């Protein structure tokens, strides 16, 4: 796809400024924190955007990479960025996006009904393969705790992406916000059997 002139120009200038000010005082020096973890997923049943019950432990136990994040439907800051990352990864992967299972889990289960989840995915133009789950507060708390991502209130959340390596069931834990390129690279590290860089 050919980018409009103004878009190209903006990206060019952004790239220039980014390169020219690599360690500016107002710029975060670390873009995100990466670690590899092992998690015991609780055997709880959540509900997807179609109102269907799903067993989270079965859902993540896939032969393909699995990406999990925690967001909510009316979030004003982090969640839209995380979700834009998800949908951009789907776009970049094209037909291969069917080879990755994306799971967003709401941290506002009181408000986020399946209908709200469905509308959210539609708003972001999500492709099949990206599910958004709700459920009881107790079950969602259990899942958050299992991923060491528990927060008592949605207003104090933080950005985490968890990427499951299908080869050994380990999880790459990413704290912070990734660019599309970084997200793709992280996905490829667990998706490509020949690449042996999954464990730093």
């Amino acid at each position: 796809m050919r980018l409009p002139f103004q878009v190209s120009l903006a990206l060019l200038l952004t790239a220039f400024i980014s390169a020219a000010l690599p360690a500016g005082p107002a710029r975060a020096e670390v873009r995100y924190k990466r670690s590899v973890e092992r998690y015991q997923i609780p055997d709880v049943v959540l509900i997807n955007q179609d109102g269907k019950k799903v067993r989270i432990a079965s859902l993540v136990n896939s032969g393909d990479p699995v990406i999990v994040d925690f967001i909510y439907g009316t979030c004003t800051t982090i969640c839209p960025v995380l979700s834009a990352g998800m949908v951009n990864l789907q776009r970049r992967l094209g037909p291969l996006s069917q080879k990755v299972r994306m799971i967003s889990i709401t941290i506002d289960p009181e408000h986020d009904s399946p209908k709200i989840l469905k509308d959210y995915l539609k708003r972001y133009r999500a492709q099949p393969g990206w599910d958004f789950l709700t459920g009881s507060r107790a079950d969602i708390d259990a899942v958050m705790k299992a991923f060491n991502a528990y927060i008592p209130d949605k207003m104090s959340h933080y950005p985490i992406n968890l990427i499951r390596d299908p080869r050994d069931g380990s999880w790459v834990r990413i704290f912070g916000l990734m660019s599309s390129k970084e997200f793709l690279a992280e996905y490829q590290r667990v998706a490509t059997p020949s690449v042996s860089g999954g464990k730093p």
Partner: protein
Amino acid sequence: MSCYRLARLKALRLGSLLLALLLLLSAGNGWGATVLPSGLPQAELIRLGERMYRDGILPSGASMPAFIRGDVEVDSTAFSCSSCHLRAGLGSFEGGVVTPPTNGVKLYQSYRRPPSLDDIPDQAGRYIYAKTVVERPAYNRETLASAMRFGVDPAGQIFNDVMPRYPLSDRDMSILIDYLELLSSEPSPGATSKEFRFATIITDDVSPEDRRALLLPLQKFIDQKNQQLGMYQKFIKFGYSPTTEMKYAFRQASLDIWELKGAPETWPAQLAAYYDKKPVFAVLGGISNGDWRPIHDFCEGQRLPCLFPITDFPVVSETGWYTYYFNKGYFQEGEAVARYLNREESLPAEGEMLQIVEDSPQGKALADGFRQTWAELERPALTTLTLSPRELADRKALDKILSKYRPRVLLLWADAAVLPELPALMGQLPADAKVFLSSGYLGEKSAAVPESVRGKVYLSYPYRLTPFVGPKDGGYDAKVPILTTAKDFGDRRITSRSTTMLRQVALRGLNLLYDNLYREHLFDLMGMQMDLTVRDYERFSFGPGQRYVSKGCYIIQLGPGADPALLPRSEWVMH
């Protein structure tokens, strides 16, 4: 040395190179040149600018292009300016990210943001992911355009990556900047640096007891505000230095009572007359036994906040903005029954389910809640019979209906008059039948469900079941355990709920306004509140655009006896 000074030095080092590039670009494309006002009439400007700001849609109707994290393309219709900077443009604080103000008044002044998690290099082993600019000089139209296009402030500091970059045309940029200059530029009516004017609304169908129950906490709230102002003024007189919070927390407050009389169709004119005579900043509470819609619509039209009226007939809408409700009233009870049944493993076919609706506002609201939710759950519509109170009292006619349909699930949205006949009526149903009733509609008679059928009768119950420590007037001075029991049936909880609204919700929002006396900002602040545990409901939860703060409703059964235990058969919130 402050970050701002460091950044300026950095900017100076790179200034010549950057300037050369900007000049080159501006020569070729017009960027960096003077951003002239759009020249549009104000109404058109607000229409187009608001659409860009709130909905991410360009004047052409296309989506605003935007990029975050350098290369993540975002659809602005999903992620607009107001998603983070909020409707009033005063910014937000959420998830450790401080989003700075973006209205012209603030942009054209130098700015130093409040402290945030970002100021700590590493928090509990977590890297800081959202470092935002701490301090910056004032913008002008040109530097503002550069900020939106390239993510650089007037001191050369680069924005956090979560702020999208918008490659807008000169014309579109001009409209957006014009809009930002208008956004939150004048305090809303009814508020000054010295005074808040409030009103409450009471319709003429409200009993004197209910009226008193509403006005008691409201008058107390106003009296306390004014008393605290007097104390504060004495502190200042004696040389006390107030904190920022204190400086803005004390204002004179007044409360007008807007009495609405006669037919609801005449209410908008009555409300307009009250408002025109003396505009208020917000409506605190209010009470009506009828449909709240005329008042809701008036507040939407005036962009007037209406905070937590006592009504069982709120407007159920996904787009209503200016009225905060406790919950969806009767509608929410019908909704809960639909969700409960949807989860039943051995749910009979729709043909074996029947909904009988009393032809009354309560019956219709309950049925609406059920029908709408049932349809959302993609279930086929149930057979629904709407009967007048007279038809419901006709035992033979009811027997005939029930023997014809023999439903295994009966939704009976009727008042307590039907209760004495319930055992006989249920004799017409299959042995495993279940009957669903509304505790809101049955009121204090809910506990009079005959004991012989309690095993098959389920009630929707939209209030707290677990113990709460606090006095019954909703205040929090004494520690008195409250155990919810059948005695609570029929309690309209007017004083307790209004006190909760004032002390736990509205006051926080009002105090956090500081000198930003904009109604939209009040909603933005209230939407960012953390969840609350309150006396009458299990939980209040907030969020931008969420307008029904109590989302739950139990399905319960009754234990034995005249003062039966309430036995939960569902969680507070069901999906």
